[in-house]
């Protein structure tokens, strides 16, 4: 049983401190205190602690910086949802209990109900009769509940609504658990392009489209395609699709414009993006893609939060010393031997995490970083979120 842990550390060199030289520390408190920042978007691949971090940031903004904050969560773990008092999916911000009001702030939280947000958007722009027609359409049902981009689109839609209401001075947004963090930025426009694009119009009226400035090959192949689609999917499907699109078209007056409007909010200086990652190669690579994209789109990237990093409580003994001593103490001083093995395994983990983090900081030396210590157990209450908030700011 001791072999495995020996191997863990056999190849490891000395200790590595957190926060390599040259890395700018992210000052989370300064960000939360900055009243010109009205929106904080937490992005990153799945499983890096986005929802928990978003909630912890919101809590700290309310308790330490007196801000009236709302956290928009997408798909919180059940126990975290309970901690925030989110027992039902009602798409409305609810005030979180147990928040210290001394600084004058408040914390509200809501869980995104994708379908309901879509329904509300339809209802807000059309009469009840037409809305009913749209709701009954199978395409609308499929798209409003299962289309992979709808969650991202509706998260943006909801963000736009919360922002427009002007009731909060800080909105913290958790992003959907997408395949890629970039989906949050891309899906709304992709969806809009589909609903708004010439592709659909051609599909609806292939004959007319053929008469315009299309190339012959395209027109011809489109005919083939339309027939193929018709044959494979059936005529009913095309009819449903057609009525869905024309229904939405008059309702929304252009999905694309709507998506672009929200996109512009994200580009505004009042918005700050935080990219989250765990110190694992995949998550850090994903964070790098996202940072690159934000840089290209000139979106304000405030920093990288590296969750679940490990720290040593002492650097007095290095890995080799610890392992050699553990072997020598085996049997006689079992408690110390195992303690030294724990220390050695931790030291090698810390070194490994530092190497992974370095890949990001080498590529984006200008992006400030906050490393957050791994919590021994998951968070299920407001006290736990407060601890995370403290850990988020301890690094600065």
């Amino acid at each position: 049983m001791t072999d495995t842990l020996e191997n863990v550390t056999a190849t490891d060199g000395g200790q590595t401190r957190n926060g390599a030289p040259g890395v700018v520390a992210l000052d989370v408190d300064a960000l939360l205190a900055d009243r010109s920042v009205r929106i904080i978007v937490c992005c990153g691949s799945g499983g890096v602690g986005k929802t928990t971090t978003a909630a912890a940031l919101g809590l700290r903004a309310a308790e330490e910086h007196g801000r009236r904050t709302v956290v928009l969560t997408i798909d919180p773990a059940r126990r975290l949802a309970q901690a925030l008092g989110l027992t039902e999916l009602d798409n409305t911000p609810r005030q979180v209990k147990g928040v210290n009001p001394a600084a004058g702030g408040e914390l509200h939280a809501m869980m995104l109900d994708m379908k309901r947000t879509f329904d509300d958007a339809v209802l807000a722009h059309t009469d009840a009769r037409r809305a009913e027609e749209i709701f009954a359409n199978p395409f609308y049902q499929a798209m409003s509940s299962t289309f992979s981009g709808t969650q991202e689109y509706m998260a943006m839609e909801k963000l736009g609504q919360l922002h427009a209401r002007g009731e909060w001075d800080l909105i913290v947004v958790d992003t959907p658990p997408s395949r890629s963090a970039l989906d949050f930025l891309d899906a709304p426009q992709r969806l809009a392009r589909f609903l708004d694009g010439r592709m659909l119009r051609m599909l609806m009226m292939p004959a007319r489209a053929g008469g315009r400035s299309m190339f012959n090959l395209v027109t011809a192949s489109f005919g083939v395609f339309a027939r193929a689609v018709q044959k494979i999917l059936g005529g009913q499907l095309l009819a449903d699709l057609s009525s869905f699109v024309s229904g939405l078209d008059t309702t929304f007056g252009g999905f694309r414009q709507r998506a672009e409007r929200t996109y512009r909010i994200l580009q505004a200086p009042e918005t700050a993006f935080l990219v989250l990652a765990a110190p694992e190669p995949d998550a850090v690579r994903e964070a790098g893609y996202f940072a690159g994209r934000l840089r290209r789109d000139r979106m304000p990237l405030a920093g990288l939060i590296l969750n679940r990093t490990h720290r040593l409580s002492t650097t007095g003994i290095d890995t080799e010393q610890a392992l050699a001593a553990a072997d020598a103490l085996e049997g006689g001083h079992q408690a110390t031997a195992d303690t030294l093995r724990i220390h050695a395994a931790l030291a090698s983990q810390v070194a490994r995490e530092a190497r992974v983090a370095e890949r990001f900081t080498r590529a984006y030396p200008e992006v400030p970083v906050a490393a957050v210590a791994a919590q021994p157990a998951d968070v299920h209450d407001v006290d736990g979120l407060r601890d995370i908030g403290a850990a988020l700011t301890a690094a600065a």
Partner: protein
Amino acid sequence: MSEKWPQRLHVVTGKGGTGKTTVAGALALALAGEGRRTLLVEVEGRQGIAPLFNVGPLPYAERRVATTSGRGEVRALAVDAEQALLEYLDMFYKLGLAGRALQRLGAIDFATTIAPGLRDVLLTGKVKEATSRTENGRRVYDAVILDAPPTGRIGRFLNVTAETARLAKVGPIKTQSEGVAAVLRSPITAVHIVTQLEEMPVQETIDAIAELTALRLPVGRIIVNATRPPLTGAAKATAAEVRRGLVAAGLAADRATVAGLVREAKDYRVRQRVESALQVDLAELGRPVIELPFLPGGVDRAGLDLLAEVLAE
């Protein structure tokens, strides 16, 4: 096929970050012993298999990515929904150049996006085809391992008939999805769930099993990735005890070092308690559980072989 893994189609899911792709790769190696040939398939366009086997990005074609000591072979395929749709359309119509023109126009992307169920049925349809493909009267693959979408999306992904039935009441797509559903619900398929001893992955494992069971999809094994053997001595790591031990080993036994080590041992015990409770939660599901060791050197071929050995045991 191996007694432990009697199925021919192994669907591997799990919460993101638990090592789903790694486990799928190791299973593909494990089942490729003794001259067998396996196919490892990914469907999310992540190119997760290529770095695992240290090869360049995978095309939409079956490529050999590894051979095993038992003269077995692992091939890999990155299924692309657009390509699968073109291939599918080509079976009915000769698209040729027109197909490429449509692709440029975004027609294929459009069709697979507007009807998300269509996309999934194309992906799973390709997997089904590979699983049942024969050549000269012999099966091309002894086993097919699918690196599937994560637990949060797995039910919807595999429940192909429900998604397409809403949109297509008749026609080839409906027939196709019914064929796929029959294979997915048959005894040749098993859906394995990869987790780690952390709360959220375990909770998602429990939720996924409930969902898959309700959908009558065959749940296979729970694979607990990245486990480490417990160090029971940590329970008695008091400051006095650690100081005595350090002195006996001739190491620095100053107050700060001792306090630091004791604190690390205490954090370890907290973690250990959480892990034991989670192990109980998993055991209570009454499903076979396999624990895979943490790979200290990271995931390389040697690490994959080690995991494959444990899986094959």
